[in-house]
């Protein structure tokens, strides 16, 4: 069973997308992040409940999840 992750409350995920990348406004820090499409898709999936804890436990996601956590975009639940 993998660790559960969720969006940090208050993050509205206001973003704009290009063909591959997105810019995302961080409601908590006021920063703007340039994210890959995959990272943005992960955030949206977390918001919408479209990704399971087991999927999130994949080793290849560890660095990305840590990065997003470091930006106060997601948190363990």
């Amino acid at each position, binding site marked *: 069973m993998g660790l559960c992750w969720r969006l940090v409350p208050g993050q509205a995920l206001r973003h704009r997308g290009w063909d591959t990348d997105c810019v995302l406004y961080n409601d908590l820090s006021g920063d703007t992040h340039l994210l*890959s499409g995959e990272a943005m898709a992960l955030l949206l999936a977390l918001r919408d409940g479209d990704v399971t804890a087991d999927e999130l436990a994949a080793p290849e996601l560890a660095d990305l999840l840590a990065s997003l956590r470091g930006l106060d975009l997601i948190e363990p639940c």
Partner: protein
Amino acid sequence: MATEQQPDATAGQPGTADLPPGGAARRRFTRAGVAASGVLLTLHSQPGMAVEVCTTPSGSLSGGLQSFRGPPPVCAGRSPGYWKTHSWPSGCNKAQLYAKIFACNAVTARTYGSCTQGGILDPQKFDTNGIGRHLMACYLNVKAGLSTFQDVPMLQRIWNEYQSKGFYAPTAGVKWDGAKIVEYLRGTMY
């Protein structure tokens, strides 16, 4: 060219953003490709930031995500009103004609062309949208070292193109009318 995925958090869940179909962010999340990508860049907010735009006209189209080499830009432009009541940078002269900096053609010779640099800072009937007023303030900001991301030739290009065509193209395929030009110029000021 950016495509707006969602304008504001207005639809769908309160406080969240719904996206129209299509676009990179809308695709189903998969683990494929994640390992090689993620957070590519962060543009930190500046506490107490008052100047909204700190980049060139073309740079402003990229959402301010512009890389700077060397010292960071100075983004402390002052408004036309400020320059009406404060001393001007060395070498600038309120009594000289606006046209000495921003060349005027036959159409603008009797209006902008006959106005002084100090006079253009006051709202003028002929100064539609306040372009002359704000260009003059930007010029003073450049001379005072308050807007290091702009330079005089850049401001002159804006004026010359607007004067001759009625718009300014900050990049290919984009046309700024007078209101949009002033919006950009005003964004570079407190």
